[in-house]
Every structure is written in structure tokens, then in C-alpha cells.
């Protein structure tokens, strides 16, 4: 039978009940709307029907989703590559920055220890980077990147992280040669803090090792004693930590004790040192007047910032 064969037959068969059927459907619709509007019991029906419709919706949306996915895979490849390149570039930049930062952090830590070394006799200080070093048994020298332009003068006290490191020897306009404590030609007047005994600490040519050859056999010195500058001699201000006694030998062959000490500053490892200007009025300042005139204002000595409160 044809799907839409003789309309007449349908018409004749159905024309009577069709109005009735429509009325029934219309009534059903209105009733549905009424109940749906009034109460919530149709909500659960709707919920269930929506849940049933979900797989269909999912299936219908999948072609467009697949199409989107394919397009992303192919068309956005170039964009992703470009982004990848940019990100790589960024990473490289950030790595460089991180390296610089860690270096800055190390520098900062060293400067911090420098400052704790500085006693209140020090009025100004000028940090300097080590740009060269020579630590043989004949010569123990450092070259740093600050000079006369920055106000450095000859014979100026130089400290490093944990203590005295030496004094300026030859001042160039932009750089300074520093003679280290352990230079065989160098001597520093020191005082043993425990007993107050004053003596000289000579360099040995062995980096970081000082000898105290002028202590009598019976003098009260022992391993672990702390040495600070005595302030005598007019070069170094008093009270700067210098070294710790490591070895005391008393043999009968010599009337003097053979005392060795190790400097607090790691002479061969510090990368930042500081020239210091003692407070002229301070009694411990040592005699020598210091000049800090002229030079590059961005790199001249800074007034010492107030020390951090002790933890």
C-alpha cells in the first residue's frame, strides 16, 4: 500500500474523529502545561527524559568536536610551534636571570658577612670585586676593581667576609693591589682577645696562615685563641677579627713559642672585599688620616648602614 495513496479514503475515514483527536491532544497539552507550571512532579520526568536524551546529544556533538579536534591538530600546529619557540626563548632568558640572581644572592651573603665584620669604629666602607689574585709563597696579593678614583688610598684596611684580609698596597686609578695578611712581607699588630697580649702576626706565604714568632715560651697562648687587630702601628683600626690560633709549639730549642694562626677570612676564596674608613674621632681609629675625595660618585664609599639587630 502506498504511503500516501488515496487521501480521500483517509479523509473519509478520519474527517469525523480528527477534530476530536485534536481536541484530545490539545487538552492533553494544556493539562501537561498546567501541571508543569503548577507543581514540580513533572520536573523529575523532565530530568529523566533529559538524561535519556544526553547520549543522543553527545553523539550529535561528536562530529563537530572531532572536526574541531582535527582542525586544532593540523591548523594550530604552526601556532603551537611558534609558541613553543617563544617559550623556549623565555626559558633561556629566565635561566640567565636565575644564574645572575644566584650570583647576586652569593654576593649579597658575602656583603652581609662583611658588614657584621665591620665594627663601629668603621665609618664608611667600599665594596670591591676581586679581579685578580696571586697567592704564591713569595707573594700573596689580590687585585680589586676599585682605585684612587673611588677614594682608595695606600695603606688602607681591607676586610672580607669574616675578618681582616690585608691592606691596600699599590693604588691605581681604577684598581688596587692588596697585600694579604699571609704575604711573607706583611705583618699585622694583633692582640689575643683572651689575654690581651699584643704581638705581631706575620705572613707565611702559605695562604691564610700567619705565624706569631715573638711570643715567649711561657706566654699564655693556646690553640683556639682569637686574634684581633690591636690598633697599634697606625694602619689598622683596633678590634677587627684577624685569625684564630691553630697551633702552639713549645720546644726547648727556641726561647720563643712557635704559634700559627689561620685567618678568619678565606683569603683565596673571597670574591668581594671592602675598603674601610675608620671613624676619625674614634679612639681605636689608628692614626693615619684617610682621604675619600673625588672619583666616581656611583662607586665611592658608602656610609655604613646601621647594623641589623642581632637575632
Amino acid at each position, binding site marked *: 500500500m502506498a504511503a*500516501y495513496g488515496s487521501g480521500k479514503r483517509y*479523509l473519509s475515514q478520519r474527517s469525523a474523529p480528527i477534530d476530536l483527536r*485534536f481536541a484530545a491532544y490539545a487538552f*492533553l497539552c494544556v493539562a501537561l*502545561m498546567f501541571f*508543569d507550571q503548577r507543581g514540580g512532579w513533572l520536573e523529575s*520526568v523532565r530530568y529523566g527524559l533529559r538524561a535519556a536524551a544526553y547520549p*543522543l546529544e553527545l553523539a550529535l*556533538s561528536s562530529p563537530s568536536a572531532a572536526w574541531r579536534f582535527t582542525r586544532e591538530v593540523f591548523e594550530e600546529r604552526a601556532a603551537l610551534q611558534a609558541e613553543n619557540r617563544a617559550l623556549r626563548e623565555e626559558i633561556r632568558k629566565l635561566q640567565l636571570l636565575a644564574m645572575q640572581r644566584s650570583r647576586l644572592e652569593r654576593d649579597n651573603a658575602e656583603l652581609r658577612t662583611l658588614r657584621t665584620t665591620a665594627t663601629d669604629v668603621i665609618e664608611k666602607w667600599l665594596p670591591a670585586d676581586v679581579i685578580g689574585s696571586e697567592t704564591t709563597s713569595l707573594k700573596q696579593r689580590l687585585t680589586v676593581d676599585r682605585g684612587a678614583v673611588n677614594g682608595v688610598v695606600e695603606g688602607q684596611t681591607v676586610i672580607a667576609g669574616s675578618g681582616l684580609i690585608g691592606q691596600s698596597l699599590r693604588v691605581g686609578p681604577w684598581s688596587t693591589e692588596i697585600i694579604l695578611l699571609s704575604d711573607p712581607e706583611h705583618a699585622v699588630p694583633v692582640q689575643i682577645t683572651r689575654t690581651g697580649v699584643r704581638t705581631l702576626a706575620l705572613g707565611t706565604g702559605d695562604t691564610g696562615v700567619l705565624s706569631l714568632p715573638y711570643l715567649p715560651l711561657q706566654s699564655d697562648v693556646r690553640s683556639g685563641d682569637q686574634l684581633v687587630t690591636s690598633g697599634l702601628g697606625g694602619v689598622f683600626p683596633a678590634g677587627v677579627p684577624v685569625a684564630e690560633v691553630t697551633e702552639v709549639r713549645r720546644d726547648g730549642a727556641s726561647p720563643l713559642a712557635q704559634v700559627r694562626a689561620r685567618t678568619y677570612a678565606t683569603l683565596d676564596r673571597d670574591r668581594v672585599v671592602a675598603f674601610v674608613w675608620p671613624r676619625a674621632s674614634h679612639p681605636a681609629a689608628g692614626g693615619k688620616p684617610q682621604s675619600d675625595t673625588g672619583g666616581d660618585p656611583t662607586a665611592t664609599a658608602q656610609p655604613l648602614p646601621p647594623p641589623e639587630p642581632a637575632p
Partner: protein
Amino acid sequence: MKLPRQSLFRAAVVLLLAFIAQIIPLPAAVDVLRPPFVVLVVIFWSLRAPGVGGIGMGFLAGLALDIYRGALFGQYALATAVVAYLGVRQHLLIRNQTQFQQGLYVFANLLLWEFVVWVIDGWTGQPTGNWSRWLPVLSGTIVWPLVAWLLDRANAVAHR
């Protein structure tokens, strides 16, 4: 009353396809212009084969639209049943009209369909939207000849 099972099956498949065309995701700009395919198919079956389509089909298709669009239960069902009813009532008259006049008839039916939905929206306090809700009436009228031609072709092929 015995209905041709094949025809019923075919009508169901066509209705399902129309429903797919109705809900398949489209960009928003195209979506406001999407013709009401389900209603077009209901009208088609009502005009061509009142025994296959008819009010029951309109009601069920409309109920499906209610569910899909989250409308009040019976809202689209009533509108679609009304259109189906008119189609069944007048299919003998319409069938003899020219394509253009059939197009006008479809336009009027779609307008009525949207109007019923719109009125119920207003009565029940739903948002009634703006002028763009009437755009599918126009687009539906425009695609009607194509839909009718396609379905006629399909029927012809099925009956060969």
C-alpha cells in the same frame, strides 16, 4: 485501522533526521537562523500522508522539542499538534495548490506555530525573546521547497 508499517518506519527515521538537524550544534550566528526542521517534517507528513503523520506525530515531535528546549511540557507539543491538525484537515486542498501557494501555507503555519509558543511563553511568564525568534519562520519557509522535494524524492525511491 491499519497503518503501513514501512511508511511509519520511514516517517520515524525522517523525523529523527529532522531532529538531528534541529539539535546538531551550530555556531550562534547560524543557530538563530536554523529552520524548524522538525515542524517542516511534521507539516510534510500531515500534508502528504495524514495517516502516517498527523496529530499524534505532531504531538510526539513537539514533546521531544519540549524536552530538548527545556520548555513547559506541552508547549511545543500543542503548537506542533495544531500545525499537524491543520495540515491533516486541509491536505486535500493544499495538495492542489501551486508550489508558491504551498510555500505561503507553510509560512502561515510556521508563523502560527511560533505564535502559539510565543503566546504560551508570555502567558506562563517565560522570557519571550526578541525579534530574532521569528527568524526561523522565514528560514523555514525558504528551505521548505528543498525539504519537500527531498522527502518526495525519498518517498519515490522507497516506492520504486
